[in-house]
């Protein structure tokens, strides 16, 4: 595997993702100049995470749904439904904020079980089940909330707009953020070193040291830069709580999809359901949990958003499903299922979020913003599809080829052979 692929999780990582990383960087650079440095201003970065964390959280569930070969159109409505219940629990029934959160998660799980049941056991296509869900839960939201906004107490707003508490001497930066950054850096180095040691112990092939150093170096640099951005904001701000929630969830779901049996089964079901069934995978179980999990994450996204907005309203979550789906596809997932990664989807989510944010900063009209985001989605997927039909890993993939090992290069040039092509090239 080439270093970049190792960087982004191997499996299913395709050139589209490298393309998207470059697109992400390009978007940042373009808007950085266009807005005269506002984009990478710490205050703005913190704001982006607070405002758009829901895309990150939803993309984590959506990528699994899409890998398994389904789609979920109901996430916005489910988020709004859970949001209003949580808000009502605190406002009308005077529940404490933590009890309301637990309630929200339970409701999310119940909604997920409902949708998972129809998809997995009755085998209604997820498109239909969640289209119905979109109507059902939007209606339920407005029924419960009487089509009005319900405010939430300050204590609860912490999860949406709060920051970690600061302590220690005045360094000009947020000490908590610095500490978190350093711990992350240490963890990155430790993980890499441990991986190398284990591979050596198992006598498996160890990647070249320079790859390890570059890879870790890049990640450390990104972490330090992020630490700076989060730490250098206005006094009293630091890493937003939502960013920590999204970060922890990203690590959890990245691990789940890459390293666990369940993760494997999701890819297997999406890649070839028949073959998966004949290998002993319980397809219904996989489908059920993938759909149920999506609704739980939608609940989390909804609750976080209510915390950020300070109230739960009747139009919350409108169009969220499109943001999440776009993020996943921009991140390199395949419409036909079986392909996609958490890392790619996060990159895709950041692309969508920074694009929206940048357009807002330059004062683009909302309608124009929508059009531009639509075009970006279309072009991103078209680019990926075109690259595949051309048999190339994509333009950017080719540009990166000098980084690949010889064998990989051979693999790349052999791609023009389609699967059903009998005239296969003999292997080296």
């Amino acid at each position, binding site marked *: 595997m080439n270093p970049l692929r190792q960087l982004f999780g191997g499996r299913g990582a395709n050139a589209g993702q490298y393309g998207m990383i470059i697109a992400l960087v390009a978007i940042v650079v373009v808007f950085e100049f266009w807005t005269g440095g506002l984009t990478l201003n710490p205050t703005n970065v913190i704001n982006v995470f607070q405002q758009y964390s829901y895309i990150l959280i939803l993309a984590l569930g959506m990528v699994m749904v899409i890998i398994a070969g389904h789609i979920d159109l109901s996430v916005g409505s489910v988020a709004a439904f859970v949001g209003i219940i949580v808000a009502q629990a605190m406002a009308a029934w005077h529940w404490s904020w933590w009890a309301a959160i637990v309630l929200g998660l339970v409701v999310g799980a119940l909604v997920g079980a409902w949708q998972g049941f129809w998809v997995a056991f009755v085998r209604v296509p997820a498109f239909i089940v969640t289209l119905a869900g979109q109507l059902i839960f939007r209606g339920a939201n407005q029924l419960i909330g009487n089509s009005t906004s319900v405010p939430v107490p300050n204590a609860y707003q912490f999860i949406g707009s709060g920051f970690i508490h600061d302590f220690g001497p005045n360094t000009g930066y947020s000490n908590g953020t610095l500490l978190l950054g350093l711990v992350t850096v240490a963890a990155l180095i430790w993980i890499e070193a441990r991986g190398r040691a284990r591979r050596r112990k198992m006598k498996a092939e160890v990647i070249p040291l320079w790859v390890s150093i570059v890879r870790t170096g890049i990640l450390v640099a990104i972490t330090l830069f992020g630490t700076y951005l989060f730490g250098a904001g206005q006094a009293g701000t630091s890493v937003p709580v939502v960013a920590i929630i999204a970060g922890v969830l990203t690590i959890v779901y990245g691990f789940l999809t890459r*390293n666990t*049996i369940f993760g494997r089964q999701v*890819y297997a079901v999406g890649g070839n359901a028949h073959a998966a069934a004949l290998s002993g995978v319980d397809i219904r179980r996989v489908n059920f949990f993938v759909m149920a999990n999506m609704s739980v994450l939608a609940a989390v996204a909804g609750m976080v958003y209510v915390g950020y907005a300070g109230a739960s309203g009747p139009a919350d979550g409108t169009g969220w499903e499109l943001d999440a789906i776009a993020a996943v596809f921009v991140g390199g997932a395949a419409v036909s299922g079986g392909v996609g990664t958490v890392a790619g989807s996060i990159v895709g989510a950041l692309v969508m979020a920074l694009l929206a944010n940048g357009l807002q900063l330059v004062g683009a009209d909302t309608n124009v913003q929508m059009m531009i985001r639509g075009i970006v989605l279309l072009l991103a997927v078209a680019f990926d599809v075109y690259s595949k039909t051309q048999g190339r890993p994509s333009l950017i993939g080719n540009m990166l080829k000098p980084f690949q090992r010889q064998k990989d290069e051979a693999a790349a040039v052999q791609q023009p*052979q389609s699967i059903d*092509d009998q005239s296969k090239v003999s292997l080296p």
Partner: protein
Amino acid sequence: MSNPNILEMRSITKEFPGVKALSNVTLTVKTGEIHAICGENGAGKSTLMKVLSGVYPHGTYTGDIVFEDEVMRFGSIKQSEEAGIVIIHQELALIPELSITENLFLGNEIGRRGVIDWTTAQLRARELLDRVGLTDDPDTQIKNLGVGKQQLVEIAKALHKNVKLLILDEPTAALNETDSQHLLGLIVGLKERGVTSIIISHKLNEIEQIADDITIIRDGRTIETLDVHQGVDENRIIRGMVGRSLESRFPDRTPHIGDVFFEVRDWTVQHPLDSSRLVCKNENFTVRRGEIVGFAGLMGAGRTELAMSIFGRSYGTYLSGQIVKDGREIKLATVRQAIDNGLAYVSEDRKQLGLNLLDSVKRSTVAADLQRISRGGVVDALQEYAVAEEYRLKLRTKVPDVEYGVSKLSGGNQQKVVLSKWMFTDPDLLILDEPTRGIDVGAKFEIYRIIQDLAQQGKGVILISSELPELLGLSDRIYTIFEGAITNELPASQADPETLMRSMTSAKKDALI
């Protein structure tokens, strides 16, 4: 015409980035003959035909195509079809939901100004179907026809296009013996009416039977052209294809057969959609340790249905019957239970049922038994790598490394990955359904050796195959199946193709041993 050759392909070279798929290939086809092209998978046969039919347009290859004395520069399939060259691919290009008539004229509709004249189309369809010997109603939907009949529809479609040179890519690969014979007869019939055919096939006996000339391609080069009428036998062809003579087509083996350890009793299974049809009728059979048990039957006889219904009821609706393993009755209601009880099923359809083509060799190898390399639901990446590497070396799978995608492997190597996957589950009984379908001669030999090794380790092997020589060459004992019932059982030493064929085509039991 003075030139006796309808087609001359001269020094055709076709390169893909970094790989030369064809190098200086020459092919000369005489007018009115049946010309066979033989070669191992990956030799370049299909690429050559794609060059000829315009799939790879003029300019993407070098060399000349001379068809009926004219140098052709096809830019698309449409253009080659207009010249009279029609290719019928292995995967049929018919639309299941449409009728025969609609399929026949798809792209060449009969009518004027975009309005179809259905009456004329119907009459013309009847006429075309008669020519290929198909009696079905032209309004029948394609999905209701068997593969054999679909193949005939394809040929009828070619006839409608005024075909002069018909190219058939593995036409009998999916057909049973009867349908194959009918199809081959039809090709000979077309020849008598002046249609020249090029046939690509792995079934050497069929080629011997109908071809006039055979061109052998190996590693993207023309090796030789043999004249069948001057006496060519299978061994001669194989020698050309693999560049060496295969002394024996089956490896030697001294069977060490133990006691009966697996037994199926009164197995009865219903068709999944049609409850009035039984796909398995009261079937009984046994397998001993270290034994290779062959199952012979024509396509549709219910061999796969039997295998899959035993393998965790993955086909049909179970009605009655017992499975006894090691003297104890076991219930196998799910595939997981079947795997946990030591069964493995290698499907006849590698690409649809055997592999996730998006996966790497590594991930495919461990796919059926992730538990073994996991702790607390977390897959141990290093163990996974070690296992995949172990099987790659053991089965000599030709792949640069185990991270390589299985979709890019040849059929033989894909099959080795499937076998690795099931060997890793450490089964007691392996059910191999057409394990060498679509695999070239060299790789077949290796697969045979793997199968024999498994038996040698004391595992029971059920071998389902449409190739009688394979069954006779590998099995210790053979059951025959006809219409969902076991019709005969005999030791391989006492079996011959004729006896087997008789039991495969009639319910009457020859004296059971």
